[in-house]
């Protein structure tokens, strides 16, 4: 099932570099799926995705889809942003603990309280996607 999309009428302020390895992550996000890697021998997830498992250094990993559901661990509103982000200031960013036991940092939409249930959304910028979170079941936009 696809994550919700939110269109943003500008380019990403500071786009990520994409490698041959991370390309599947960004391609999947563009299609509404949040992915990461799991070590075949350890069975453990990691984020960001890595071409090996950091837990046991196993060299075989598989791509798995994350639910995008989790709880807000903490957040802040950044008023003094780096130059590239001044157009988006102030920025609300936070840390989310996903149901799968993975901690992830991202843009936060709306003003959810800590421990609030949140869901992942895809910000569809003109040049590519970023991921963000908002209180589950709400319609908050950027």
């Amino acid at each position, binding site marked *: 099932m696809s994550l919700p999309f939110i269109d943003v009428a500008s380019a*990403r*302020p*500071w*786009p*990520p*570099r*994409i490698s041959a390895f*991370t390309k599947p992550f960004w391609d999947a996000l563009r299609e509404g799926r949040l992915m990461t890697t799991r070590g075949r021998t350890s069975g453990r*997830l*990691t*984020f*960001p995705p890595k071409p090996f498992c950091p837990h046991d250094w196993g060299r075989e990993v598989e791509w798995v889809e994350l639910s995008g559901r989790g709880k807000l*661990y*903490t*957040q*802040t*509103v*950044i*008023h*003094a*942003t*780096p*130059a*590239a*982000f*001044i157009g*988006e200031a*102030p*920025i609300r*960013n*936070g*840390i989310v*603990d996903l149901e799968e*036991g*993975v*901690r*992830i*940092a*991202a*843009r936060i939409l709306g003003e959810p309280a*800590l*421990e609030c249930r949140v869901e992942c959304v895809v910000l569809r910028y003109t040049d590519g996607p*970023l991921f963000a979170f908002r209180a589950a079941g709400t319609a908050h936009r950027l």
Partner: protein
Amino acid sequence: MTRRVAIIGAAASPNGKLQTPQDAPLQTLEHEILAPLVIEAMAVAGVPKEEVGALVFAMCRPYTLQKYFATFMANYLRLPLKGSIMEVLGNGMTGGMAFDQAINAVALGHADVALALGINMESQAASAEHAMSTMRATGDVDFHTIFGFTPIAWYAMDAVRYMHDFGATRAQLASVAVKNRRHACLNPIAQFRKPLSLEEVLSARPIVEPLGLFEVPPRGDGAVCLVVCAEEVAKARGTPYALVRGRGFFHDGTHQLSDVPNDMIAFSAAHRAATAAYGAAGIGPGDLDLAELYAPCTIVEVLASEALGLTPRGRGAAEAQAGETSLGGRIPICTSGGCLSRGHPAYVTGLLTIYELWEQLTHRAGERQVANARLGAGSCELGNYNAALIHILEAVA
């Protein structure tokens, strides 16, 4: 071979805006600021320059034009060296690592006297532009920086979680800034020496919520030189010195954020580094007379004070507000004024930490002197205290 190491001399510039605008007809030059400090520190140490066997520099900011600054300075000072010369970089630990490497040079017998020194010039870089560089220092450039996180944004998130978990108030956190300003008013090298009220801290414009202007580090420049030596050299002089009693380090194997959920505000690396340092010194936190913590934001001082066992878990902010961590209190923290008011020229902050301990332990601290100060701890860290380096120093009269 290892041997005991002491500090026998130190000098520091005033902190603040030392750097000149690029188009100023007369420029301030890094070596012209740092060299007199070397000479002053060595005069305090009372040993001839020929005794110096190693130079360990905190790396300069990229704004410093002179490259290979270390050997450039050795030439400027005409200092042949039999031990080593290097520039070290460890983000927030940079200054602390410079001190640590100078200790090693002496402890291992590579040098009898070593200098740990550095100059951090950055104040002419506009904050938003400077942040374009520092934003790439925390988290993953391709997965975190893309959202516009800045280093202090992570500390702000610590503050939000701390207030959530322990019911700490904004006023409690803000009281750390008021206390540190009070300390800085007594410190001749502090960047800010005008008293600051709780109301001013609370009503300041927001920088990274909930932290306002006075709860995040000022931009500024600074320079410092420490003279360390083998204890027998220190003893032979017959004047007071500060002995390195213990050292602890821990890196938790994460960079800014652990993808395995943990208690982010426990600062576990600081706790483990402190435990190691106390163990090496054969003391406990209750034996300390003062602590100088690497704390760019109010919340960082609170969390580090808890991790080092100086205040109970969840009570750091309340104890700061109650005066327990003020001069005259149970355990004075950041008597220099700390990063917030003494100043935070980041790459030499770790050296300034040791400089303040030196001043206190050799009873040079004037109006901010901690009475009978004998044992002091200094800490520095790497991004949200994922790593911490802690030294315990002892006064020897």
